């Protein structure tokens, strides 16, 4: 189930016989297609694959005023730093902690909401609620955090209410101890609605005769949920879960960067913000590149591995 079709099956038809035509003729026949492919190909080569090669400065001691080519080679020194640099290790721990919290709380939330939405009988009410809960997904992180600050910030709505009641103010937005639950709640607020789309699509594809049969066999609502609904969408749950694992080390940048000053790096530094601050504030370009490269390689392996697992467990993968 739920395979993003990427390879695609070639359709039979006149073009099925292409292999008997000589290559030169085929190239000329498809000249327009090559013209269409060219700009996009140039984009991927220049802006994705060239920077991938650019990671070579991870093995150098790059300094902007010395230049890319003249900077000295230093072997694996920058990678060895990964094991000793305390700031990096803190960023790594923060990232993993946040990702685990996301997995436990933010991952199941859209599923619960989707089941709830699916049980609404009035189509119009369902549409209305969907419109509302999808919306935060399209707001930028800057706006999301501005909104949260208006509600929970020092001069925000809740603290104004508390002050009016002569109660103590509470510190939510700039409290390092609350930062991790806070970012998980923010992510949930932003994306719980959007996450329901894929589950709702899967729910509508469950064969309704299964429910009818279950009822005839005397299944109540709870049994139908456990024995029909959940098995029906289990493959999509596993697929999403595994993909989630694949992005384990990429929490994203903006949400953390925007709130890093308020709570301090001790609580808010994640791998992405670490790369940025190390390069742009400490000028430690090569080490930052090494961190980014290791993260990229680990992420790539996790995606490939997750895809392999998804294929094994659900029969189909994403790639």
């Amino acid at each position, binding site marked *: *189930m739920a*395979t*993003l079709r990427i390879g*695609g099956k070639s359709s039979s038809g006149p*073009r099925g016989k292409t292999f008997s035509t000589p290559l030169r003729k*085929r*190239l000329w026949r498809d000249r*327009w*297609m*090559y013209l*269409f*492919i060219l700009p*996009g190909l140039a*984009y991927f*080569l220049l*802006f*994705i*694959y060239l*920077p*991938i*090669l*650019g*990671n070579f400065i991870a093995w150098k001691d790059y300094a902007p005023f010395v230049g*890319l080519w003249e900077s000295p080679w230093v072997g694996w020194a920058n990678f060895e730093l990964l094991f000793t640099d305390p700031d990096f290790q803190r960023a790594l721990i923060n990232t993993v902690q946040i990702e685990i919290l996301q997995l436990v709380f933010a991952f199941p939330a859209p599923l619960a*909401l989707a089941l*709830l939405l699916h049980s609404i009988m*009035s*189509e119009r009410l369902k*549409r209305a*609620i*969907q419109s509302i*809960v*999808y919306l935060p997904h*399209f*707001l*930028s992180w*800057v706006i999301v955090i*501005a*909104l949260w*600050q*208006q*509600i929970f910030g020092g001069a925000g*709505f809740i603290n*104004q209410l508390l002050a009016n009641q002569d109660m103590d103010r509470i510190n939510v937005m700039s409290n390092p101890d609350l930062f991790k639950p806070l970012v998980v709640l923010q992510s949930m607020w932003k994306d719980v609605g959007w996450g329901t*789309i894929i589950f709702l699509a899967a729910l509508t594809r469950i064969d*309704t005769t299964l*429910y009818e049969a279950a*009822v*005839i066999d005397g299944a109540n*609502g709870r049994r139908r949920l456990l024995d029909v609904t959940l098995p029906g969408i289990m493959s999509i749950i596993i697929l999403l879960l595994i993909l989630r694992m694949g992005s384990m080390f990429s929490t994203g*940048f903006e949400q953390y960067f925007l709130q890093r*000053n308020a709570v301090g790096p001790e609580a808010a530094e994640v791998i992405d913000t670490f*790369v940025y601050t190390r390069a742009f504030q400490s000028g430690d*370009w090569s080490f930052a*590149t090494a961190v*980014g490269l290791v993260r*990229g390689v680990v992420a*790539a392996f996790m*995606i490939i591995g997750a895809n392999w697992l998804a294929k094994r467990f659900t029969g189909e993968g994403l*790639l």
Partner: protein
Amino acid sequence: MATIREERSSTIPSLGGGSLVIPEVKRKRRDSNRPIWMEEPGPLMKIAKAIALTFVTLIMVFPMVYVVAVSFSSAKDVLAGGLILFPRNPTLESYSAILQGGVVTRALQISILLTLFGTFAQMVFTVTLAYGLSRPGVWGSKFVLYLVLGAMIFYPGMIPSFLLIKELGLLNTYPALIVPGLISAWNLIIVRNFFMNIPADLTDAAKIDGASDAQILWRIILPLSKAVLAVIALFYGVGIWNQFFNVILYINDSTMWPVQNVLRQYVLMGSNLASADQFAPNQAPPPAQSIQMAVVVLATVPILIVYPFLQRYFTKGVLTGSIKG
């Protein structure tokens, strides 16, 4: 549901040529959609569901309503504090203050132009590549497709991407905000899948009539793909409008900043907007909080405008259509 109700009161043509009008039967509304086998949930369950849904919806809506209300409030009301869900003395002070020209006005103009040009460029690059890769049997296209898939798996990294833009001399230029994200591999795959599902008979017929591949794209493929292209264009547009981090990376000159970065400067970092903009000298400036909220509202409005169009397509399965079930 709407269609079902229409059918109920519709006229059914009978054999005699006349039509038989079936009067609409009054029914209880709530079981109109409920499958015959599903029992009505108990009252407790219903209340619990209603509470949960109301809670979720309120949480989503409340901050936005609050921010809009504050942005329209006068200085006195904001300083008085308390619950503002509807401005007691609605005023446009804050909006007229920031739209007089100055930082926010300029940032909005920059964001609008960037979004228009950027989305156009992204659509051209995405559609052409998607079409080029959509036809089986084009020699070498499989290889290009694998390059695209590779880009989905491996992220080149922040520093090499930055150094490339620097070496290309694009730092502090607007192309730096558009060019690195010209094609999203995910969007490309969605568009390509859509193109591939268009029946080959249509294009073959045009081919026999002597149409070139360019004409086929323009005359046949694109008109048939309006819905998916609209969604992708809106995704791209929202992405550019919301972009913040690329601006931090590539644009040092704060006079070139689009609205998200200005918003962050004044709302999250608390820089004083009143001193940055020129107000009439002997007139009390509107309260800082209202101005900040007005900026938030202005940065959100374009999203709210395109949102209903986007929303129409989500439920139609334009996107989930590319996910085989």
